[in-house]
């Protein structure tokens, strides 16, 4: 945790009951966003590469990589 | 118009994904108004009321609990008092019984003493009466004997001294047999 974080004084127990529902909703709403972002970032990079090099295979590679990374990110944040 | 023409017309119209500037302004204004009225003025009011209601309900529960505790306390008190009163009554009864027994014993003793005293008095009286009767009887018997003897003997026992001597001797003979007198 970064030292700059200022979390309002609040014990873990006070918040526990609410955070379960929050985690679930967080995950449910974040997954599509992450997938889309992964596709855009890495698919976009693939598209740039294919534009420079003329190798069209970079686009699907980028898209697949983006989906995989987004799925991994979701796993990291909510799956563990 | 055909479907294609409709679509074409739509293309010519506004792109639905591009916001109109004036609608951004109106939307901001509308929300600002709602936020000021609903958010800033009204929400605190209903929050206050809900908080008060919660407090009232909790206060009511507290009050009821207090009342129940008070009632419980009073009940305990009454029970304690009742038990105390019962004990007291039992104690008083016991005391009275003891006292009664004592009084009875005293009275009996007194009565027995009285009875004894009466009996003794009666005895004394009887003794006195007997003595008196004996004395009277002795005098009477003397006189009667003298009279009888003088009649029988025919001679007057003029001589006082002899007369007495005879009577005394007679009486001493009588006293020699006490069963006959009693």
């Amino acid at each position, binding site marked *: 945790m970064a030292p700059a974080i200022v979390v309002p004084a609040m014990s873990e127990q006070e918040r526990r009951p609410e955070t379960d529902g929050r985690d679930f909703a967080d995950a449910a709403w974040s997954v599509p966003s992450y997938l889309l972002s992964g596709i855009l970032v890495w698919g976009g990079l693939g598209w740039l590469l294919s534009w420079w090099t003329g190798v069209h295979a970079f686009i699907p590679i980028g898209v697949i990589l983006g989906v995989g990374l987004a799925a991994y990110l979701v796993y990291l944040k909510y799956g563990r | 118009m055909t479907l294609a023409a409709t679509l074409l017309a739509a293309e010519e119209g506004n792109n639905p994904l591009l916001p109109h500037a004036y609608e951004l302004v109106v939307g901001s204004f509308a*929300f600002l108004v709602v936020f000021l009225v609903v958010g800033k003025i009204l929400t605190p009011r209903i929050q206050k009321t809900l908080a008060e209601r919660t407090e009232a309900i909790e206060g009511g529960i507290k009050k009821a609990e207090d009342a129940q505790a008070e009632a419980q306390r009073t009940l305990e008190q009454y029970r304690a008092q009742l038990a105390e009163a019962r004990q007291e009554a039992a104690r008083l009864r016991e005391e009275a019984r003891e006292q009664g027994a004592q009084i009875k014993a005293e009275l009996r003793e007194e009565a027995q003493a009285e009875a004894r005293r009466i009996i003794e008095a009666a005895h004394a009286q009887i003794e006195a009466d007997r003595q008196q009767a004996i004395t009277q009887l002795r005098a009477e018997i003397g006189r009667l004997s003298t009279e009888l003897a003088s009649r029988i003997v025919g001679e007057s026992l003029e001589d006082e001294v002899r007369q007495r001597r005879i009577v005394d001797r007679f009486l001493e003979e009588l006293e020699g047999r006490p069963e006959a007198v009693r």
Partner: protein
Amino acid sequence: MTPTMLVAEDFTAPGPSIFDFPPLYEGAPYWLTKPVVMAVFGAIVVCALAWSAFANPKLVPRGMQNIGEMGYQFVRDQVARPFLGKDAERWMPLLLSLFFLILLWNLFGVIPLIQIPVASHIAFPAVFAALIYIIKIYLGVKHQGLVGYFKNMMFPPGLPKPIYVLLAPIEFLSNLIIAPFTHAVRLFANMFAGHLILAFFSAVGFWFLFEKLTPLGSGLGVLGVIMTIAMTGFEMFIQFLQAFLFTMLAAMYIGGSLHPDH
């Protein structure tokens, strides 16, 4: 060609142009259109209803206050508390205003004579989403620090460094660009599509029963009317759901900035 196809050929399905409104009357300023008027009208109605419910609240509620409290408790228990915990009360003014205004604007889509869901013009959801976006970043920076906010967002702890290079751009794009965009577009698109569907079925009914009544086409017309009624009910559900979801996501973003858990 069958007669049905003949009339069907003349029928024009309503398209996106049904969302284009001219100024209200001849000579009116260009911005004075039906959606604008309805947006303002909706705001006034929300204020009036809320006023009648909450202006003078009683400990024992009756009438409008009951209804208003149902709305308040719904937002508090289903939206604010799950995402904001004990900060819920503090954010209720914002969330309640959002929910009530969006709900009424959405319901305008099925109210006769009004029949325009205000949020089907993207400017209105965009205003809300932008507001929440600003609040989200402001709170994130305020509570986690400028560096801490972006670090928490883009670098989930406990990973080897090279992985961050791959993941951080995705986090950045997802949180700062896609999220606010989808926040606005989800509401807009639902209202837009729902209104289009309603317009289509009612146009079918109107066309085949009134404009070009034929024995064969009347069946289609009746189907159109039935579907219009069914879809109106469905739309009301969607309108409520979208108002709820928009407010819920707003609470989620605010809560995420207040307490970074991940």
